[in-house]
């Protein structure tokens, strides 16, 4: 017994010592260290050949040039393209996140059919024959005008193909979202039946008066604006920002004029008053460029004395006078308009009041000023042939009166069968239109919805059929860019990688549907495929585009084609009225735009969400900013929850106190509250558009809602 | 940790003092324990021997 134990013990000790002295433990330790560095669940990106390809970003209307870095056939990084006329090497958070969209879980990987609420994969043949049959049936019933289309833009070959298809098919119902360009155009008397686009020669301005324009927050072509803004810093150009909140633009401005929300037009007229009173205007230029000046002058001098304006706007009269004088005396002053990212149109009153300043000082179509550009109609396709059915269909009235997209939901609500089939391309109306809940309700009433989206966005989720487009890194397409540029551009995307999934170019889909329908529709689409159609449409621009990805459309204004600005006689109260009852909703809710949040039809990819500060979103809570005094009145504290109520909806929000916003104003981040896309975006925060509703401008009918009345109650 | 065989070793004052003290302390413990064990083994052996003789 004793011996056994001793034996056992010495054996144990010996074994331990032996093992310790052998290479075994060292080998094991080494293995462990290697293994813990190569856990199979941590990916090891394969190496390969590096290549760079230039293209154009289509994720926002900015039209930046990009340089895509690939390793073999993988896109690993998108960088700003050097010497590009828009962004010269710079790039924004959305553009940088492009690979995450390309490879992300939100991609629609093949045609999908919605069967009782769940999507099923189908083949392209099935999808195309189903849609063609449907279209043929509707047309045979003589209801071709009940087919409608929504595009993200009115420009470029793909929206043009959709519109062309609808026309050849016999429907006048092609819509796209209105913008400040529409407001601008409407404030002018056109020489021909054309649109007038504003082009700002900001790089050469020496005094910039911005009425809520998010120069650093994503207005126009965002990177071009940032670069212009920096040129001002070094060139001593003064930037005056009129805005109710301390936006990033206001923060970068030389002077921030925190006007009460909605009083921008009055402030502009107050400034105009100073210019008129002190005769700082350019009579010759006014005569040349506009109509109706003298009556307008009388009205402004009578009603917009700086003292009175100060009372309404909250900006003191001395500041108004100073700004008026500085603007009047500056060599190349410019007044710029469009709130935030400038995605929503302005009321004609406000547009006119602000642009009147440009006209007054005579900086229209001059270096450093505003250019009245014609629509860049560069697409040259053969005439559409129309059969009688098409002609009858085109005779019908547009479902949404005046071709205004925001009227479509209520039109559908009124007459249920007004739209039987809807195409949506490069747009996400079920997220971006105001009063979103009503939009979705109306959308659901449409018997058959077809989305061309590459991503599983809100509209695609609610569609009956998804015919996914290639992503912008997988396709050829022209990218027309206006976005306030001095000279409009045509950018160009080309396939950086072969299509990853069973996707098809929307242009090809439209062409093949049309050709399958034969007759006059088919003959209106004489191209084999989209690439041929694109080449044909671009004409002289094709070669420069295929070589350099960008073409500038230089515009030199000539007298005959200059549209004339129409001075609008301001009425006594040119403020845009807010929806809601002032008595029970005494706060004003305004959106805040940020370059770190995408509020357009593309949702923010994971990297972008990562850059959001915790003063905008915590967990899934949208954070609103209010002044501490507002909070005190309502018994709210930093970080507490409150119920935000507007005439449209009510939502639970988190409170952040800020000294960058006036009393009784709520600043609300725009771009959150997606329900579709991936788990990195869906369910995070609240969609601002759900809280406001369309407010129509009395003159133009455009949806000019910029805010709404609201109340806050502690939750 | 070890001179000569590990590439991070530098013959500077820091390494010599630090590692010197370490190896010094480890040696005392190691030698001490070895001594105890060997001596105990010898002692045990001796006792066994004496008991056998009796």
């Amino acid at each position, binding site marked *: 017994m*004793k011996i056994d*134990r*001793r034996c056992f013990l010495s054996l144990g000790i010996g074994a331990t010592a032996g093992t310790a002295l052998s290479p075994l433990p060292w080998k094991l*330790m080494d293995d*462990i*260290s290697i*293994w*813990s560095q190569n856990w199979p669940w941590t990916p090891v990106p394969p190496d390969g050949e590096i290549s760079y390809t230039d293209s154009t970003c289509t994720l926002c209307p900015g039209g930046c040039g990009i340089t895509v870095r690939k390793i073999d056939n993988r896109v690993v990084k998108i960088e700003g393209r050097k010497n590009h006329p828009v962004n010269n090497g710079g790039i924004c958070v959305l553009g940088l996140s492009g690979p995450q969209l390309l490879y992300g879980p939100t991609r629609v990987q093949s045609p999908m059919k919605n069967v009782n609420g769940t999507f099923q994969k189908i083949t392209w043949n099935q999808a195309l024959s189903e849609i063609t049959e449907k279209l043929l049936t509707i047309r045979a019933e003589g209801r071709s005008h009940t087919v409608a289309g929504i595009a993200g833009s009115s420009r470029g070959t793909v929206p043009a193909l959709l519109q062309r298809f609808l026309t050849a098919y016999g429907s006048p119902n092609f819509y796209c979202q209105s913008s400040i360009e529409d407001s601008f155009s409407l404030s002018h008397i056109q020489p021909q039946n054309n649109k007038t686009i504003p082009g700002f020669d900001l790089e050469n301005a020496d005094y910039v008066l911005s009425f809520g324009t998010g120069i650093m927050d994503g207005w126009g072509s965002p990177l071009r604006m940032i670069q212009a803004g920096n040129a001002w810093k070094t060139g001593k150009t003064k930037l005056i920002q009129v805005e109710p909140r301390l936006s990033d633009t206001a923060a970068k401005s030389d002077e921030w004029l925190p006007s009460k929300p909605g009083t921008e037009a009055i402030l502009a007229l107050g400034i105009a008053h100073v210019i008129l009173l002190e005769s700082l205007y350019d009579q010759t230029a006014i005569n040349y460029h506009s109509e109706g000046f003298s009556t307008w002058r009388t009205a402004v001098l009578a009603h917009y004395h700086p003292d009175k304006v100060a009372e309404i706007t909250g900006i003191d009269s001395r500041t108004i006078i100073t700004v008026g004088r500085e603007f009047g005396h500056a060599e190349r002053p410019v007044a710029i308009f469009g709130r935030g990212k400038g995605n929503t149109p302005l009321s004609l009153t406000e547009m006119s009041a602000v642009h009147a300043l440009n006209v007054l000082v005579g900086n229209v179509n001059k270096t450093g000023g505003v250019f009245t550009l014609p629509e860049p109609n560069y697409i040259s396709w053969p005439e559409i042939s129309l059969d009688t059915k098409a002609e009858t269909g085109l005779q019908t009235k547009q479902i949404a009166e005046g071709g205004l997209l925001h009227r479509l939901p209520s039109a559908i609500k009124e007459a249920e069968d007004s739209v039987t089939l809807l195409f949506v391309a490069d747009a996400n109306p079920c997220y971006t239109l105001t009063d979103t809940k009503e939009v979705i309700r109306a959308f659901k009433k449409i018997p058959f919805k077809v989305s061309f989206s590459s991503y599983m966005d809100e509209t695609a989720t609610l569609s009956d059929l998804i015919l996914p487009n290639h992503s912008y890194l997988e396709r050829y397409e022209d990218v027309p860019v206006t976005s306030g540029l001095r000279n409009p551009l045509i950018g160009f995307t080309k396939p950086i990688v072969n299509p990853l999934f069973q996707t098809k170019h929307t242009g090809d889909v439209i062409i093949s549907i049309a050709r399958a329908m034969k007759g006059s529709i088919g003959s209106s689409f004489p191209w084999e495929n989209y690439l041929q159609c694109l080449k044909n449409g671009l004409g002289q621009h094709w070669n420069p585009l295929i070589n350099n990805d960008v073409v500038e459309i230089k515009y030199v204004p000539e007298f005959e084609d200059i549209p004339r600005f129409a001075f609008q006689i301001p009425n006594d109260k040119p403020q845009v009225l807010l929806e809601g009852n002032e008595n029970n909703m005494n706060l004003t809710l305004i959106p805040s735009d940020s370059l770190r949040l995408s509020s357009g039809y593309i949702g923010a990819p994971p990297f972008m969400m990562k850059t959001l500060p915790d003063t905008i979103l915590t967990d899934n809570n949208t954070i609103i900013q209010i002044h501490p005094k507002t909070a005190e009145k309502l018994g709210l504290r930093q970080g507490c929850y409150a119920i935000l109520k507007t005439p449209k909806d009510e939502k639970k929000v988190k409170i952040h106190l800020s000294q960058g916003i006036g009393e009784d104003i709520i600043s609300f981040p725009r771009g959150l509250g997606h329900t579709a896309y991936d788990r990195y975006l869906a369910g995070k925060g609240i969609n601002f558009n759900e809280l406001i509703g369309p407010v129509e401008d009395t003159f133009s009918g455009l949806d000019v809602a910029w805010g709404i009345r609201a109340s806050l109650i502690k939750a | *940790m070890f001179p000569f065989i*590990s590439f*991070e070793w530098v013959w500077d004052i*820091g*390494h010599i003092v*630090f*590692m010197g*003290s*370490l190896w010094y*302390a*480890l040696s*005392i*413990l190691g030698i*001490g*324990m070895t*001594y*105890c*064990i060997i*001596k*105990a*083994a010898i*002692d*045990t052996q001796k*006792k*066994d021997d004496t008991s056998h003789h009796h």
Partner: protein
Amino acid sequence: MDSAFIPEGVKRCPFSQFLAGLGVVGVVLAWGIYAMLLCWLKGLNQTNMNDSYGFALWIWADLAIIALGGGAFFSGFLKYIVGKDELKNIINFAVLIGFICYSSALLILAIDIGQPLRGWFIFWHANVHSMLTEVAFCLSCYFGVLTIEYIPLILENRKIDKIPFFHNLSHNMHEIMAVFASTGAFLSCFHQGSLGGVAGVLFGRPFAYREGLLVWPWTFFLFTWSAAAYGPCFTIFLTRLLEKITGKKLVKDNVIDLLAKISGWMIFTYIIAKIIDTWYWAAVTVHSKGQTLMDFYDDNMFYGLWILVAEIVVGGIFPALILLTKKGRNSEALLWTAVILACLGVCINRWVMVLQVMAAPVLPFEDWALYYPSWQEVATTILPVAYGIILVMISYRYLPIFPQEKELNPIESY
């Protein structure tokens, strides 16, 4: 049932009661082990630590138990080097406590690191300039010493002692224990110090940063000193607690009195040094960085001047004064108060030197970052307590931890 293993001449509770006790503590232990496994398998996302709190509850627990376990090295130092022979009657228990504290500290460190499988890099790729390297080396070496000190105790178990080899081994180890103990005291001085150095060298963190001597910041010396000062209080506290639980006197009063008196003087001198250090830090060090004392005690929801008062006055001056007076040491109530306050005092000091360092902003545009531990952190911190209780239960039952127990508690009907 297990009477053959129980030391001669002492009385122990029935085996069933002992097992029941083990069972109860075992449940807590199991909870801690579950949390530990979660941390190892799922990673440190199981904690509430974050990028502001790289060090949190665990590092505090480490520092605190090592300070409290300081009783082992200091009583060893007193007995074997200074020659206070009375302390032989408490040294076994002090060693046991030390062994528990240090093994726990090592375990917590193994949970605390993000890549436990690479933990040995700290030895293999050692950066000799890092205080943490010094900690790791001295800590593991001293744990070795404690193991060496604990082994003879195990060997003295009635059954084991009957094996001649173990009997001889135990005897031999006792013979040269002074060598081991002094090596231990040397190692311990350094790792207690380097634990203090961990915070003191952070020149990017004015709250922690201290000037010092050669490569050692003042906190190096303060930590060694405070561990030596407060450690014995913890030994006394646990001895007294064990006496309460067992209902027996285990150590004679003169032994406790001696240890308490030494501890009193140590705390008293330490706290003077600590006050001077705090004053110098506030008036000179922090001032030169553009900050003031109140920058670190203001404008947040937790850390106020109260914590400074609690550490220095309540947990320092009070127990020192009690332990310095004979009356204080002789009054059971006052002694209890003193050792408890002292233990709290040193724990607060370690808390402050870890958690408040992380909490206080350095960049003027940053805010305080406050933190509370997750249940996994709490469970893994309680884990060593449960483990310690179990080890004390077993050791007390089977090993002659308290040499005076037999004499103080004679068993009449043997």
